[in-house]
């Protein structure tokens, strides 16, 4: 923990933002000859909502996949909680307390909402397959504990009415919420959201924004999200990284990013007065 700066700031609305919890240092990611990410550095601080934005193909999702251990960058280092992270498998990253949702929903369609969210608890389950199948000893107590934790999340995200409904029967907006529930069930310290509001109508977006803010506020979860909807990003996040063609062209508070000329030109379009 030596590298973690101890400074703590308090935002205008009273949330505490701690020191750097994750740092990306000079990340470069190539697929064959294509450079997806080129020498990008930025950090994520504890308790903040950090957005990554950029036009299509800017490398946002690749960046998220680097954080979640799905891609391994050819150059650069990922530092997590003050330590340099060796190349890891995604499940190892998950074990470190990093959970994610997917741009294209990746739930178990045939299973109920409850079962889907329960799968998020896998990291908390210590008993073996046999013990669980026989429902012996610790397994029972463990299931109860996990169910209790899952029910809290179901309550928090207001999906009680679909608890027993198979996911395949749910509308898109609710599926997104179930995915968030599953990620939360892992009690992550960092939550990665890949376009949590893509394809939603205004009302669903408002709901989702409220849930993201509440998660951050209530559990103190650090959130890194990718989003297309500029309005949402500017409202939600504390700091924003802007990418374009694999390069970082801006980094700062929403206001700073909004007035950054490079960002305006590349992404928001050139202003006409």
């Amino acid at each position, binding site marked *: 923990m030596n590298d973690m700066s101890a400074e703590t700031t308090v935002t205008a609305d009273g949330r505490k933002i701690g020191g750097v919890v994750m740092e990306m240092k000079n990340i470069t990611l190539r697929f064959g000859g294509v450079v997806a990410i080129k020498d990008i550095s930025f950090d994520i601080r504890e308790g903040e909502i950090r957005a990554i934005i950029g036009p299509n193909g800017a490398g946002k999702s690749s960046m998220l996949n680097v954080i979640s251990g799905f891609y391994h960058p050819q150059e650069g280092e990922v530092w997590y909680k003050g330590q340099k992270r060796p190349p890891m498998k995604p499940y190892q990253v998950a074990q470190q307390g990093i959970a994610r949702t997917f741009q294209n929903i990746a739930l178990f369609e045939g299973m109920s909402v409850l079962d889907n969210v329960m799968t998020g608890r896998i990291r908390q389950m210590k008993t073996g397959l046999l013990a669980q199948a026989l429902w012996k000893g610790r397994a029972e107590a463990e299931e109860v504990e996990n169910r209790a934790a899952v029910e809290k999340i179901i309550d*928090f995200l207001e999906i*009680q*009415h679909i608890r027993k409904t198979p996911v395949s029967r749910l509308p898109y907006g609710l599926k997104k919420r179930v995915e968030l529930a599953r990620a939360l069930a892992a009690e992550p310290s960092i939550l990665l959201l890949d376009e949590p509001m893509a394809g939603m109508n205004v009302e669903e977006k408002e709901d989702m924004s409220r849930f993201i*803010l509440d998660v951050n*506020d209530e559990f103190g979860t650090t959130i890194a999200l990718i989003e297309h909807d500029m309005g949402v990003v500017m409202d939600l996040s504390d700091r924003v990284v802007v990418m374009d063609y694999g390069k970082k062209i801006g980094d700062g508070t929403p206001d700073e990013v909004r007035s950054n000329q490079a960002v305006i030109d590349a992404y928001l379009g050139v202003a006409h007065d």
Partner: protein
Amino acid sequence: MVSIPALLQRNATRFANRPAYREKEYGIWQSWSWAEAEKEIEALALGLLNLGVNEGDFIAIIGRNRPYFYWSMVAAQSVGAIPVPLYQDAAAPEMAYVMEHCGARFAIVEDQEQVDKLIEVQEDLYQLEHMIYVDPRGLRKYDHHKLHRFIDIQAQGRSAYYEFIEDLKARREKLNYDSVCVMLYTSGTTGKPKGVVLSNRNIIEASKSSSEFDHLTKDEEVLAYLPMAWVGDFIFSIGQAYWCGFCVNCPESPETMQTDLREIGPTYFFAPPRVFETQLTSVMIRMEDASRLKKWLFDHFMAHARRVGPAILDGKQVSGMDRLKYRLGNLFVYGPLKDTLGLGRVRVGYTAGEAIGPEIFDFYRSLGINLKQLYGQTEASVFITLQPDGEVRSDTVGVPAPGVEIRISETGEVFYRSPGTFEYYYKNPDSTASTKDAEGWVATGDAGFFEEGSGHLRIIDRAKDVGKMADGKLFAPKYVENKLKFYPNILEAVVFGNGRDECTAFINIDLTAVGNWAERNNIGYASYQELAGHPQVLETIRGHVEEVNRSLADDPMLSHCQVHRFLVLHKELDADDGEMTRTRKVRRNVISEKFDDLLTALYDGSTEVFTTTEVTYEDGRKGAISATLRIIEAEVAMEIKTKVAAE
């Protein structure tokens, strides 16, 4: 037993370990015994004393049905304050009116949403000193000078036990039959809401006699899901529950009501007609998708049930063969269906508030569910008339409830007098005087008559809505509207014709029923508006209107009320836009003013009309929608003259 807090003390001893409240939370039914509930209420009452509640203060209570809010009401009474439950879905300005009118110093609310609403209107609420919230989510960053968490207030109460317990006991002792039990605001079909003051006598007498009428016991199970601001919920979930000592079950969330209903299986159930309609619509829709065998079984046995079910329920003579077949039907169809609906254990069921469609009513009765009608209002502590077991019909509202006297005035208006009759309208002596006379007779505002022979009361319409057509004949819009609304495709109807020579109507389609039909027939639509304007939908609705016209033609009193022209509105009538009350009764005046252009078009021979309407979204923002509406002519049936001189 002269007050609700006194009943609580009695129940805490007599029914100590029996359940008093249940609420489903985190997927499990949590329960509180009467002894535990008494402790929770005491802690809250002490906390309220600690906060400085005085006798006679008003405490606003805003939330959905949860044990905490029932406790709040009784805790408020225990310290001599008056609980004022409000509709939790009301917009901020509506709440401001009521809270300002009663000058509430305290508010006990559910969550951030309600806190935000009150903060939004706090400039008008200079008397409001403290807000207590149950759900802390999202509220941590708020300024907590005037904001307290429910469990903190209880904890403060517990730790200040010795300081305040004597005061609490003294205040509780002071309560008597005449002290105010609760103040409920009427939904107000006309004008501003009025605060109806009900005493302990009103509530306890009404609860006692109605419980005896239906032989309610401590073993009943009820599901509390109707708005807490409504007198019915107060009587069922507090009055009768405390009188009998039965358990009140609170659903997990409004969306899970149907599941929770099924899990609890209430023995005593109350619902407005709308709930029964919605349930029946969903059953019918699901049966459409069922396999052929199941559908055949359902149709076959339901036909049998319609024929003999109500008679069996009423204990009338039915042949042995029919009984046997009914039992078989019960095994295959009625039993499982009742179980799915959550009505399998219902011993006493009531519907009230609006007229219920005869087909809907008969459907439930034929299944063997003892569904009855009652007629009541806030000012009567609910009960005016009730249907006794075995004398149930869809077109009457029953006989006078125990202790209630009824008379019909010369103009046909129904008057009553009872122990449940309200004390007065708060800060409104004029309305009190015009509603309740010196002898205690209360004008209901409804026109009706006693049926010869059975002695049952029949309600025709709101007295003020009954008008005259241009030729002087009786105009009873509600009667026609109800006939229209009995069709599943029609959600709401508003009939016009007062002072005119022909009747016309605005109609709202039911999006569930019509939407399902559209899906089945591969008709695409993106919005309510688009579906409402679809030619085939209009044609279907015209069919319904013409059927209603034919049935009206049979009634010599009302045959001239047939609907000549109608249009299907481009938006749903909504309480947020002021077109309906929170209990979903149409506000005629508001509608005819707001849609004046449409009304004109119905009478000037237009075939279509373009209109723009302002709408209010749930969060209070405004928008506008515009549409071109077609005006449809409906065929009018010939009057049948033969019946006229029958007597």
